[in-house]
């Protein structure tokens, strides 16, 4: 069987949903003729036609707004942000229109807003951001970020079928770097459920996205040093799988929160808060964050490498915490 890359998994997931449900459609900049800046929608225009693969003007607020309206009128739009960094231009539509409609007047807004996030590809300050931190304090949203091709496909399908607005972040570093064999039948990965990417007993690394791969690498190294690392892949960033957090805390009693975004106000903060509040008694060491520093993402490779929280940073933190 053929191996499927992360981005192909996303494309396949969207294609299957487009085939399955005529209310699903794609909207965004250059998603039609061009097939998307990263080719996530390549071939869709030919297969589904311009009514279901809608190229738009450059207008992220407009794109999200149109998606919201279409969703209220029975559709299931999948809106692409060419880079997730541009979601800041559609911020108001997401946080005030999409996220609050159900609470206010019982109007469901089943949209997906998806796009490439993350660094490691010399994208500089505006093509490398991880933006989940901007949305964590916005009730009404769901946020998803897969780390594997399997999850990418299963989660994009779940996101499209979800009755609420889902932000779907795709780590562009993974787009073509990882591949795996995928089941041929229809499957989804449920939103809201983390997975244990690697079992371990001494210390847990709670993470998601590209960082999962760095964490697994670090775990190998540490294993050789006799430190057993459990890697928890959140997959869903909102709502957070508290049960998975509690389970791993109860098991290893020492936790590292590991993410690529900047430290202050990142999701690591929320994870730490949940643990320090709900799992306080099980903690045998400080909740340790391994994250980017509090600055924009720099452009030059040595700067970006210094900025990004990599395998070495994680290993160092894990050694310290393990010996606490």
């Amino acid at each position, binding site marked *: 069987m053929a191996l499927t890359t992360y981005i192909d998994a996303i494309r396949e997931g969207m294609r299957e949903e487009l085939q399955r449900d005529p209310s699903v459609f794609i909207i965004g900049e250059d998603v039609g003729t061009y097939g998307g800046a990263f080719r996530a929608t390549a071939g869709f225009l030919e297969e589904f036609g311009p009514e279901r693969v809608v190229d738009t003007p450059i207008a992220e*607020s407009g794109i999200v707004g*149109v998606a919201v*309206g279409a969703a*209220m*009128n*029975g559709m299931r739009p999948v809106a692409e942000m060419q880079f997730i960094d541009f979601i800041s231009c559609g911020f108001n539509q997401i946080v005030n229109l999409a996220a609050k409609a159900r609470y206010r*007047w019982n109007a469901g807004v089943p949209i997906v807003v998806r796009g490439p996030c993350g660094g490691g590809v010399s994208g500089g300050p505006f093509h490398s951001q991880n933006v989940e931190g901007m949305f964590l304090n916005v009730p*009404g949203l769901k946020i998803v970020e897969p780390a594997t091709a399997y999850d990418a496909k299963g989660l994009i399908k779940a996101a499209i079928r979800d009755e609420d607005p889902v932000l779907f972040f795709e780590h562009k570093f993974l787009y073509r770097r990882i591949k795996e064999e995928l089941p041929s039948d229809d499957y989804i990965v449920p939103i809201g459920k983390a997975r244990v990417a690697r079992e371990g007993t001494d210390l847990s690394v709670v993470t998601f996205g590209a960082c999962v791969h760095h964490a697994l690498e670090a775990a190998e190294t540490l294993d050789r040093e006799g430190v057993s690392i459990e890697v928890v892949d959140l997959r869903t960033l909102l709502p957070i799988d508290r049960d998975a957090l509690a389970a791993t805390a109860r098991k290893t009693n020492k936790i590292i929160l590991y993410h690529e975004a900047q430290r202050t106000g990142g999701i690591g903060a929320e994870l730490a808060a949940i643990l320090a509040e709900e799992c306080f008694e099980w903690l045998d060491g400080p909740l340790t964050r391994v994250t980017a520093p509090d600055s924009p993402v720099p452009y030059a490779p040595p700067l970006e490498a210094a900025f990004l929280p990599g395998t070495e940073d994680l290993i160092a933190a894990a050694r310290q915490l393990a010996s606490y």
Partner: protein
Amino acid sequence: MESSVTSDDRPSKRAFASGSLVTSRCVGGEIGAESARLTPEQKLEIWQHLQRNRMVEERLGLLYRTGNVVGGLFSSLGQEGISVGTAYALQPQDWVGPLIRNLGVMLVRGVRPREAFTQYCARATSPTGGRDGNTHFGDLDRRIVAPISHLGAIIPVMTGIALASKYKGEDAVAMTYIGDGGTSTGDFHEGVNIAAVLNVPLVLIVENNGYAYSTPLRMQTRVDDLVLKADGYGIPSEVVDGNDVLAVYDAAKRAVDRARDGRGPVFLEMKTFRMKGHAEHDDAKYVPPELFEEWRQKDPILRYDRVLEGEGILTEKERTQRVATLKAEIDADADFAVNSPAPEPNFAFGRVYADDGGPGPLPGPAWGPSGATRAAGSTSDGGR
């Protein structure tokens, strides 16, 4: 075509210009043709809507002064002709996205006065159960989309509504509203432009009432006529006397027909005036009194009364009688609101997500919706 700098180099010094383009543009059909087709019954119905709109808002003013209204109160005094005339041009399958000054639109679309009263008074019986206030309610069954406060935001949303209707082949038009001030927002621009490019059936009603809160038109935009903005999107536009309900209906009907016909969005600028402050708390000291005086003469209801009198459709006596009937309905609905309980505290929780086991469906219009019927393709559970 020559340069369009309408007012030489500096923004116009006029606080509010009524424009010079009133009769020279036409979005299709023939100006006056649609209103000429109205039957006397229809004209009476329009009168009824106008009068009801005003009386409901007057009653809201009373509820405000007696401390029943929670939060601010927004009035469309003097602008009722726009809400009524535009909404009257719609068919049941059409969608509306009214703003805070478009209670009249909702009433024409079948919303009952008690829904507005209970909303403004934040009662358990209100359409949102007290979760939101004033005209911030909608109903996907009745094809009314609730606005958010952020001006302009509803325009892309209604563009999306129109896109979906077009895709589903539903023959439905989406109509929405924006103030002169709201045209300055980025979302206005993005929403109208996308609607134009995608050629969706969106009818945008721009209510140019001279002020945005305390800011006069000339400090909001450098043009006197907002239709010039439509040209930049390549969509047809028309300037309408917003205080002439028949002219409003006429233009709206032609615009709706054009949009329904698959010919894309239409932009109608309604010249009118905001006869109160921004909200009830605002005494509008910043408005030159002579402007109020000037526009009081153009009151849309008094003008329409004279039209119907002239056409022998509505006598003084019948008017008094109809007002009394309306008053009875409004009294009953206001009483209903006043006597309704405040929501239970725990109604604050849940239904943030579809699957969070929230407090369940809203109280909803237990009295049954009237007006628009539900068309295929969308049901009440969140538009799906």
